[in-house]
């Protein structure tokens, strides 16, 4: 096993290099300009905009810019933001805690809802509980987060006035009060994002469980006189976990990458909102750094998922 992991890690290095090159070329080829805001300002002649482009090396050949980026990255230099004129790692680190807190909580919420609901619904297919759960799930992923977010704001902030809808990184107060305030302001974004993901995840869990629950060995286990709970947890879930683990592995990088729409709506200064503003202002060093870390996480969690498959189903041979 450890040999397998080691080999996969070694393969990861060239594959990440390849990914980084593709990412860089896509970003460089994508049109736009970090200084487009200057364009309509009569005080700033277009030559200034063009001179800035040249100064930040935007007019250099792409392969040269990639090599620059790569050698800097190998020296631990993450680059320098055109727009904020500061180091990219500082920018990202500033936003990491908020992202981990909000998006992480949302993912946990999604799992906490999806797994029990999906499992229970699958044990009683087409029961009332199953029907209600399914309908709610359909509502959940038919409505985009930009819509549910505003709906939540209208209900809980504007009408009921229970929750704030502007996320603050500078919560006043100390101790318990601080903790409560942090929780209060995260309720809506976590709910919006968590419910959206729970909706599709519930459907997957239910389906995975249904695939397994009708198999003969489950019937055998029941026939042996094992209790329903034991059968479900010990015999069914473990085998149904493979698609679920796959999905979780797909979702985990987002805990770092953030959720662009939700972060915009609730003004959460996470990495998602950093990414989108940087993309819109063509701040390539920031976009490159964020997406590259994201790519590393994608590869890493893919590896973790593969290892978990082997543990869940020992017959899977890892080579």
């Amino acid at each position, binding site marked *: 096993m450890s040999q397998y992991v080691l080999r996969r890690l070694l*393969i990861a290095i060239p*594959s990440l290099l390849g990914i980084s090159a593709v990412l860089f070329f896509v970003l460089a080829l994508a049109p736009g300009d970090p200084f487009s805001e200057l364009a309509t300002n009569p005080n700033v002649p277009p030559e200034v905009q063009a001179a800035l482009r040249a100064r930040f090396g935007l007019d250099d050949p792409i392969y040269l810019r990639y090599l620059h980026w790569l050698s800097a990255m190998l020296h631990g230099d993450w680059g320098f933001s055109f727009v904020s004129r500061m180091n990219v790692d500082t920018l990202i680190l500033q936003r990491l805690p908020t992202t981990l807190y909000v998006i992480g909580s949302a993912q946990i919420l999604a799992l906490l809802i999806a797994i029990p609901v999906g499992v229970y619904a699958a044990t009683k297919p087409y029961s009332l509980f199953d029907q209600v759960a399914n309908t709610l799930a359909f509502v959940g992923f038919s409505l985009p987060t930009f819509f549910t977010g505003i709906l939540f704001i209208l209900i809980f902030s504007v009408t009921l006035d229970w929750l704030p809808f502007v996320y603050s990184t500078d919560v006043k107060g100390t101790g318990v009060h601080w903790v409560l305030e942090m929780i209060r302001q995260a309720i809506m974004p976590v709910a919006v994002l968590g419910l959206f993901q729970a909706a599709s995840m519930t459907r997957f869990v239910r*389906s995975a469980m*249904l695939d397994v629950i009708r198999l*003969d060995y489950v019937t055998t286990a029941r026939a042996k006189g094992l209790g329903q709970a034991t059968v479900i947890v010990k015999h069914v879930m473990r085998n149904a976990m493979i698609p679920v683990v796959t999905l979780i592995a797909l979702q985990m990088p987002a805990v770092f990458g953030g959720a662009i729409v939700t972060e915009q709506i609730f003004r959460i200064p996470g990495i998602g909102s950093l990414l989108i503003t940087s993309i819109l202002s063509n701040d390539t060093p920031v976009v490159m750094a964020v997406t590259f870390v994201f790519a590393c996480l994608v590869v890493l969690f893919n590896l973790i998922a593969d290892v978990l*498959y082997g543990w869940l*189903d020992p017959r899977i041979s890892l080579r």
Partner: protein
Amino acid sequence: MAGLTLASPSAERGVYSPWRETWRRYSRHKLAVVSAFLLLILILAVVVGPFIWRVKINDIDILAGMQGPSLAHPFGTDDLGQDILARMIYGGRISLAVGLAAMLVSVVIGTLVGALAGMSRGAVGHGLMWLTDLFLSLPQLPLLLMLIYLFRDGLKQVFGPEGGIFILIVLVIGGLRWMPVARLVRAQFLSIREKEFVEAARALGASPVRQVVKHILPNALGPVIIAGTIDVAAAIIAESTLSFLGLGFPPDTPTWGRLLYDAKDFLDIGPHWALFPGAAIFIAVVAINFIGDGLRDALDARRVI
């Protein structure tokens, strides 16, 4: 584990062709039948709708803006006084077509890549997973902007404005959403290909293609169908964001996703504006989901119906 064989109890009932058998099983799933009917009505409505409801989609009448449902405007009007029913009928064609076609693209690509990666060992498998990882890490917005920049004019010339854009949108949405399907299919394959019934088939000399098509794939379809139905909803919404980037249909094309987006700031003034397109997307999604469920049950030989 004899139960894993594909022998179906229903086979004993008589001589049915497999297709009729599938249909018989499908028709037992009441919700699925109702859903298929519902989807048919939706499709019919957007296809023949414009011939019955002859209000123009872009008749602006500012004085009649933000009206709730009435006889003249059964679904009300938006802020420019345009008839929402007419716009939904028009936009529904695009939304449904894009949703279904993009779903097919993503499911087909995802299943192919996942199946190949799941079956092959060594370089091909690693290569395909690398591709999946790459697509998962690509930031979509710059990629889309690059695609517009590189291909929009070319495609327009080759396929004409409408057809070219439709193909581009379907390929773009489908092409950016196949990765979860690929990973799910691969994971299923890794597990199923080691199961006894596949080993048995292998031992009996079944070719790899036969192993996949006859034995592994049918057992791996569960998550694929779920992913497909989720993709329909996602594609309908994604289409609306594309037109903001100048990639989709022209900005005045009232697709369902677009209507919902435009309505969001007016949610407290005119909820009807969001309600109808939102409900339409919901109905389409529910119908497609139940059809998927029905199909799965019908194709799942183990299940006794």
